C-alpha cells in the first residue's frame, strides 16, 4: 500500500522536476558571465577559438534550444560533460557523492543519537537546571559559525595536541578504516553541532506538547513507569513535527556542506558545487542541482511515509 503510494508520488513529481529544471536552467544563465570566461582571462585565446569552444558545448544556441538539448539528453540518461574537466558529469558526481554520504550519514546518525535523548530529557525535566543548561548550549550550538568552530578544533586537536589530521579525506597511501575515521571525526563534529542543537529543540517542544495531553495523564494513572510513558506513549507522537525538519536537514547535508567541506578539504559534493559555480560549469551545475531537487522530493515522500508509521491515524491509499 505504502509502496504503491510512494511510486505514485514519485511519478507525480515528474512535472514538478521538469518545472524545477526550467527554473534552474534560467537562473544559471542569468548569473553574470559564463563558462567561457575562464578563457577570456587569458588574452591569447582568439575570438575564433572561443567560438569553436562555444559551438562544441552548444553555448552558441539560444537558451531555449540549449534547454531542450539538455532535456533530450537527460531523458536518455546522458548528463553531459563538465566544461572544467572534460569528464562526464555523472562520473564527477558519483566520485564526490561517496565522501559526502559518509560525512553526512555519520553526522545524521550521531545527531539523532544525541538529539533524541537530550530533547526527551529536557522536556521531561522542563524548567530544571539540566533543561536550562541544554537550552543555553543549544542556542550556542545553533549560533556558532561553522568555520570558526572548525578552526578552533583544528588548532586544538591538530596544531596543539597533534592527535588528529586537520583536514583531508585520508592519508596518502593509507586509507585504512582507522585512518579514515581519524579524518572524519572533526568534520562530523562540526556538521553535527548545529543539527543536534536544532533537532533537540524540536523534539523538546514536540514532547512538551504531547506530555500535556490527557492520554499521558491516563497512562501515568494506570501506573506505567515514567520511562515507558516517555518512550512508548509520548515519543512517537512527539517525533512527527521533528521528522519534517530532519528530512529537510538531511537533504541539506547530502547536498554537500559547502563550508565544512571546504575548511576540512573534504572531497565532497559541496566543494564540487563551489568550484562548478566559480567556473560557471553549466552542465555540472544542472546535474548537481537536479540531483539536489530529486533528493528533496524523495526526502519529502520518506517523511510522509514516516508520519504514517508514527501515527496510525494517518493512512495513504
Amino acid at each position, binding site marked *: 500500500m505504502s509502496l504503491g503510494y510512494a511510486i505514485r508520488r514519485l511519478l507525480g513529481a515528474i512535472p514538478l522536476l521538469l518545472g524545477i529544471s526550467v527554473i534552474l536552467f534560467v537562473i544559471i544563465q542569468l*548569473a*553574470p*558571465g*559564463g563558462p567561457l*570566461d*575562464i*578563457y*577570456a*582571462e*587569458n*588574452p*591569447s*585565446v*582568439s575570438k575564433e*577559438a572561443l567560438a*569553436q*569552444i562555444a559551438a*562544441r558545448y552548444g553555448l552558441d544556441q539560444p537558451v531555449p534550444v540549449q534547454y531542450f538539448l539538455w532535456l533530450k539528453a537527460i531523458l536518455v540518461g546522458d548528463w553531459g*560533460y563538465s566544461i*572544467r*574537466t*572534460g*569528464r562526464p558529469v555523472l562520473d*564527477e558526481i558519483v*566520485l*564526490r557523492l561517496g565522501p559526502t554520504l559518509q560525512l553526512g550519514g555519520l553526522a545524521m546518525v550521531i545527531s539523532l543519537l544525541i538529539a533524541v535523548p537530550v530533547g526527551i530529557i529536557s522536556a521531561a525535566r522542563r524548567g530544571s537546571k539540566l533543561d536550562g543548561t541544554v537550552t543555553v548550549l543549544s542556542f550556542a550550538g545553533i549560533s556558532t559559525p561553522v*568555520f570558526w568552530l572548525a*578552526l578552533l578544533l*583544528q*588548532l586544538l586537536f*591538530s*596544531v596543539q595536541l*597533534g592527535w588528529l*589530521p*586537520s*583536514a*583531508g*579525506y*585520508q592519508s*596518502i*597511501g593509507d586509507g585504512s578504516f582507522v585512518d579514515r575515521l581519524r579524518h572524519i571525526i572533526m568534520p562530523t563534529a562540526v556538521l553535527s553541532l548545529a543539527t543536534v542543537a536544532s533537532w533537540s529543540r524540536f523534539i523538546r517542544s514536540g514532547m512538551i506538547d504531547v506530555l500535556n495531553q490527557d492520554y499521558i495523564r491516563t497512562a501515568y494513572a494506570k501506573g506505567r513507569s515514567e520511562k515507558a510513558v516517555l518512550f512508548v506513549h509520548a515519543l512517537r507522537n512527539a517525533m512527527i513535527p521533528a521528522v519534517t525538519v530532519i528530512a529537510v536537514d538531511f537533504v541539506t547535508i547530502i547536498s554537500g556542506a559547502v563550508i565544512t567541506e*571546504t*575548511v*576540512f*578539504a573534504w*572531497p*565532497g559534493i559541496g*566543494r*564540487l558545487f563551489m*568550484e562548478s*559555480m*566559480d*567556473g*560557471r560549469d553549466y552542465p555540472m551545475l544542472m546535474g548537481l542541482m537536479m540531483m539536489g531537487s530529486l533528493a528533496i522530493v524523495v526526502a519529502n515522500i520518506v517523511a510522509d511515509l514516516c508520519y504514517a508509521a508514527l501515527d496510525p491515524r494517518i493512512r495513504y491509499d
Partner: protein
Amino acid sequence: MNVKLSRRVLLQGILATTTALATMRAFPVMAQQAGGTLTVGLTYELDTMNTYSTGFLADAQHTVIEGLIAPDKDARYVPVLAKEVPTLDNGGIVLSEDRSKMTITYKLQENVKWHDGAPFTSADVKFTWEAVKDPAFIAESKDGTQDIDSIDLPDDYTVVCNYNTVKPNFASTLFTFGIMPKHLLEGTDLNTSSYNETPVGTGPFKVAEFVRGQYVVLDKNTDYWQTAESGDALPYIDRLVFRIVTDSNTLITQLQSGELDMAVSVPYGRASQLEGVEGLEIVVGPQLSWGHLDFNFRNPILADGTVRKAVAHAINRETLIRVQGGFPTPIKSLVLPIFDLYDDATPEYAYDPAAANAMLDDAGYTKGGDGIREKDGDRLSFAFVVQSGRADDENVQQVIIAQLKEIGIEATADNKTGVAYREARYSGGYDLIYGRWITSADPVYSIFYGTEGENNGQGYSNPELDEVFARLENTLDQDVRKAAASEMQRIIAEDLPAIALTGGVSVIAKPVELKNFVPNPTNMTNFVDTKEWYLES
C-alpha cells in the same frame, strides 16, 4: 600567535637562502642527499594535469612536463629540451629578407626519454603544435600556434618553425609550456584523454596517482635524462605530493601542524602566523605581477586627464604597502624593474595631496557640503571595483577610498566575485578598478592599453601609444625595442590610463631542510625547475 613578522626575520630568511645558495656554488661537492617526501599545499581545485588546458598556473604539471626552454629565476630563458635558446646571434632565429617573418630552429637534446621509455624526438614537438592548434582541442592557451605556418623536421633532433610574423615574445608561448608525447596521443581525443589525469612527460617526476579533489602524488623519475654536475642522479627528492587545500585558514593550520611542508602563495596578511613554526621558513621571492588602478574612459569625468592626475597625486604607495604586510614594492612603471626593458627615467606623479587639491580647484571642481567635489552637476563620485574575497585587494581598496576622500573624491566599493568580476573588467562595468596582472617573462603590453587590446576594458585609445606598441612588438632588434619600451612607459605614466602602484612578491613557506630551492618569478611557477632540490636530514 599574532606576532608581527618583522622585516628582519624576513631578511634573515632571504639571507639564509642566498647564503645557502652561495655556499652550494662555492662547494659543489657538498653532499646533496637523495630521498624524502615534500608535501605542498595547492590553494585551488586542480582541474586537469594537462598544462595546456588547466585554468590555473600549472604548479604540479611543470614537475612532470618539460618545455623546449624555460624562464629562470631572473625571468631569462634557458634551454631545457632544446640545446640552446634560439637567438639572432646564434643563428637560431633567421629573419626573412623583408624582415616581416622569421624562422626559428631548435636543436634538441638527444638522450631524452619519455616516462614510458620511448625516445623524445622532433616529431613530438611538431605534434604538440598540431594538437594544441586543433580547433577541437579545448585549451586554456593556444598562444603562438597561429603565428606558425609550418614546421619542418630535417632530422629527429632538429625542429624548424616557419613563422608568418615576427614575434619577439615567442619564448613565452607554445613550446615553453611543455611538449606532449606523439606516440601516446596521436589519434586520441585530448579533451577526454587519460593524459589529463596522468600525463606522460620527460620531467624529473612522474604522476603516480591523481585523486580529484584531494591530491596528486608524483614519484621520482629514476630514468631522468639530466644528471647533476657532480654526477649525481637527478632528481634528489623521492616524492612530491600536492594536496588541495582551498581554504587559506586550513592551509596555515596544516603548515603549523606539519601536515604540509610547503606553500607557495601564502596570503600576505597570513605570513605572520607562520613565524616561529619549527622547521619552517618564509622566503620572499619576486613575482612578475603589478598592482594597478585603472580608469574607465567611458566616464567623461575620468576621460579628463586632470581628474586622473589628481587621483595619482592623492595615492600614497607606502600606505598601500603597509596594509599588504609590508611585502610589495612601490613601482612607477608598468614594466617591472627586473626586466631589461624597464626605464628608470619614467616620470611619476608623486604623492602630493595639496597639489591634487589645487589641480581640482583650478579645474573648477568645488567641494559641496559633504566634502565631495562637483562641477556643473558632475559629482566626483565613482564606483570602485575589486575582486571580492581577496583580502589584500580589499585592504588596498579601503586605503585608496580614504586617500581619495582627502581630495574630495568619493569612491564607493562595488566589489564582485569570480566571473562577475571578470565580466566587469572586460566590459568596463566600473569607474575605477584595482587588480593585479601576473605575466610571463616577456609580457606584451598592448593587450592591456592598446586600442584593440583584448584586456582593454577601459575604452582607452591613444593612437600615439598604438604606434609605439607596433614598433615594440614586431621587431627582434633590441635597441629598437628598448627605445620603444621607454616611450611606452613615458606615455602611460603621463597619460595615465592606469596608475602602476606596487610590484608583487610571492610569500613562500618552505621547510628549512629544503635546499637548492630558488623562487621563480614567472607564470611558469616555482616548480618549473625542481630537479636539483633536495631535503637535508
